[in-house]
């Protein structure tokens, strides 16, 4: 078990500048994310948090300046849950388009169990609520073997108990040597050092 960030960077960002609609969102942003980093991106609405995560993930490929180096597999959760209504939660995870890894049947059951969807494995997803869709998506975190997680507002539409579970999972992940970059409007209540990433100043040294 490691405590605190160390080791080779999983993600390195060099001199990132982004302008949208004639307004500069950030400029000369450089930082590195290493194993053990639990990074929360800080900033008000419209500050460019989602844009930053999409650039880090590689979904945004132009319209910005600077360089992003990725040194590991990554898992990105965006605003949309990517859950198909016509498939069951089990099928949604087994045939997930992210192609991150092939999951076994019991692994998937475990993960669905952990996000509180025990008994819903084989129910068509259109019978589930919006919050349950989010939870199917969050089950990917329990299955993930990627070191780097990029999470855009993961707590949206999740109840209090779910948030606490998720916070625990994030800490476990970084303690195992993973790293998390996430956006959230509520402060994380975890017994781990959360690094705040400011879009104007980058990571604290």
């Amino acid at each position: 078990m490691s405590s605190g960030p160390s080791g080779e960077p999983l993600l390195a960002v060099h001199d990132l500048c982004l302008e949208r609609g004639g307004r500069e969102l950030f400029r000369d942003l450089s930082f590195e994310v290493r194993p053990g980093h639990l990074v929360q991106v800080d900033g008000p609405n419209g500050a460019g948090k989602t844009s930053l995560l999409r650039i880090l993930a590689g979904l945004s490929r132009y319209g910005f300046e600077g360089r992003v180096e990725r040194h590991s597999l990554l898992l990105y959760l965006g605003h949309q849950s990517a859950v198909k209504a016509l498939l069951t939660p089990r099928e949604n995870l087994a045939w997930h388009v992210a192609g991150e890894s092939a999951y076994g049947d019991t692994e998937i059951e475990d993960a669905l169990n952990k996000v509180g969807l025990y008994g819903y494995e084989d129910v068509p997803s259109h019978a589930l609520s919006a919050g349950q869709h989010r939870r199917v998506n969050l089950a990917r975190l329990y299955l993930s073997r990627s070191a780097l997680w990029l999470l855009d507002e993961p707590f949206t539409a999740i109840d209090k108990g779910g948030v606490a579970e998720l916070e625990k999972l994030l800490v476990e992940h970084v303690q195992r040597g993973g790293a998390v970059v996430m956006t959230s409007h509520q402060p994380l209540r975890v017994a781990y050092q959360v690094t705040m990433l400011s879009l104007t100043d980058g990571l604290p040294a």
Partner: protein
Amino acid sequence: MSAPAEAPATGAFCLALLRRQLTLAARRPIEIGNPLLFFAMVVALFPLGLGPAPDKLAGFAPGILWIIALLSNLLTSETVFRSDFEDGSLEQLLLAPQPLFMSVLAYIGAHWLTTGLLLALVSPVFALMINLPGQAIGALVASLLLGTAVLSLVGGIGAALTVGLKRGGMLISLLILPFYMPVLIFGSAAVQNAVLGTPAVPYLAILGAMLCLAIALAPLAIAAGLRISVDA
């Protein structure tokens, strides 16, 4: 990390995608049935518009059948990536470590299996309805099998470029119909030649060549189009 991070092999991933797409299609059987129904209904329009004289219909049959096949393919092409774009699956697909070229082929393959293949298999029924001579039916099925695969691939380019647009429906026809024309020319020529008793194989061979070219190049354009649409 506890387990070494390793993504599944491309082949296994593509098979999973294919299975996913086919399951999705099978759970909405009406969407598989719609193009076939469309085909049947447009076939019924021609005797009403051209008159029911059997010999007259037979003369136009190869062209009629091919034009309808092309239109029904056009109508379904738009939907290939639409729902995945709307629920966020598409951006997850773009992030997959496997080559997008192959994933795109899996999507198009599933589309062809649920549209072009079925259309080719039921086309003899419609051919009989508009008096296509019996000796041309083999050529019709073969040309539709090859030709609709090209149409699915080319249609995928239009679908990828317009998937992010709210009013993409009409636009996609304008974009890809010109690219459909060579397939129409050689597809209907194959059937026409079979009707006349001359060999249809050369035309089928040209369709096969078009298919090879489309398999090699269209996924590149589709992949580029998807990246642009997700990033727009």
